[in-house]
């Protein structure tokens, strides 16, 4: 917040008027430029994914492989967001500062955004590649869906008008339970169907083309910059919101005091 512009706020003294700063501007432009390069790489440079089997059949993901450069980083950003929410919630319960509470809120929102994007892009990719929009037996699919649902519930709690401290504490517990629950859901779905359509560590097995691998790594980097940019803005929005709420309370208090002062003077009470 210290780097943000503080003049002509209109809100109050010492409260920044914008969520933008030098750092976020740099991150924002980096994201845009990175995304432009990523689009060029994904569509022009990376060849379509084909393999010829021993029987001479042509198999592979074909053009759908280009969706990977959105799908895989989205999934990683979603898990990063939820992981950060988990850590920030732990930190909140330990130190009870608004900073950690706002951090948990901001990262959960970003997590849900990218979790939803992961599910949508995965579905679109799965249709031509796996011949299905959705596969109930797939552990990662179902786990991600439940995880997004759990954190949508978490965000619902965050939207309830209630005392800030009460809401922060309960949200933190919900985030912790939700994160633990992800592990249980993952294990139970694994036992439930015990199969996955997802590739097992193609990166390690070096079955992936060099162009695809480079573009995938590049997409992770762009994703991380985007994540930082979104997180800074969202965190600052949360901070401004808390400042406005505080100001409103103070204003209302001042008004009540003024009213009381007027009504008191004719009565002559001390």
């Amino acid at each position, binding site marked *: 917040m210290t780097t943000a512009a503080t003049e002509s706020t209109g809100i109050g003294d010492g409260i920044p008027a914008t969520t933008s700063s030098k750092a976020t501007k740099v991150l924002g432009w980096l994201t845009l430029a990175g995304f432009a390069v990523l689009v060029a790489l994904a569509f022009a440079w990376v060849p379509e994914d084909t393999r010829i089997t021993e029987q001479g059949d042509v198999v592979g993901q074909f053009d759908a492989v280009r969706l990977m450069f959105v799908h895989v980083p989205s999934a990683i950003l979603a898990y990063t967001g939820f992981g950060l929410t988990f850590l920030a919630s732990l930190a909140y*319960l330990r130190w009870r500062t608004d900073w950690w509470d706002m951090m948990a809120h901001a990262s959960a929102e970003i997590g849900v955004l990218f979790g939803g994007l992961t599910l949508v892009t995965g579905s679109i990719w799965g249709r031509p590649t796996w011949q299905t929009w959705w596969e109930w037996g797939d552990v990662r699919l179902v786990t991600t869906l*439940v995880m997004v*649902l*759990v954190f*949508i*519930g*978490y965000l*619902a*709690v965050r939207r*309830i*008008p*209630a*005392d800030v*401290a*009460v809401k922060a*504490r*309960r949200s933190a*517990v*919900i985030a*912790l*339970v*939700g994160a*633990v*629950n992800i592990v*249980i*859901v993952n*294990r*139970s*779905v694994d*036992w*439930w169907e015990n199969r996955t359509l997802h590739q097992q560590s193609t990166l390690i097995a070096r079955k992936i083309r060099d162009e695809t691998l480079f573009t995938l790594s590049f997409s992770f980097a762009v994703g991380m910059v985007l994540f930082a940019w979104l997180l800074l803005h969202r965190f600052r929005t949360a901070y401004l919101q808390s400042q406005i709420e505080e100001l409103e309370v103070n204003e209302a208090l001042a008004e009540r005091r003024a009213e009381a002062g007027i009504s008191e003077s004719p009565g002559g009470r001390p």
Partner: protein
Amino acid sequence: MFRDAWLIVGKDLRIEMRSRVGLNQIVPFAVTVLVLFAFALDTDQEALRTYAPGLFWVTVLLAALLAIGRSFAVDLADGAADRLLLSGIDPIAVFGGKAVAIAVQLVVLEVLLGAGVVLLFDVTVHRYGLLVCAGLAAAAGVATAGTLYGALVAGLGVRETLLPVLLLPVVAPVLIGATRAFQDAFGVAGAEGWAWLGLLAGFAAIYGVFGALSYGALLEEA
């Protein structure tokens, strides 16, 4: 502590015995859901028999939402929760007591619904031991997770709509495990019923410990 927990169990169950809300409203609701499932799946007896375990547990979860919501609504009325807090009873005992009381209600509901499933959906029980154990373990899991989440949303003003959103994704593993165990017990699908019992017991244990540990922090401002 166990004596205190037992007091809470007695209090909650006595309220239920006297008000009969569970018996007069929640059980009829659950039976209605079973009937609706039959309508939804047409008069196909074979489909009903095949999907009876899943339908049974979805019904139990829906009814459990009502029972859990009610358990906390009763505590909030007339400032009863504040007095409970002032009474100096250990929060762990309160959590345990409420969870056991909800579990007992769920077991009663399961017995009645089980009879309904046998009669309406024409299923036959092959393994009674597995059926009973899975029923008890699943009730314990739903009750512990439900008590934790019930306390989390208690007093937030919108708990009727919030509890399902939060609790249902969390008890998804119970639905999977209990359905698989019942499929085995009903003999409708080859499933490792006893292995799934382990998942149910583990779920109940995890939420029991987690709920007991965090209940104090949740009660202090409720």
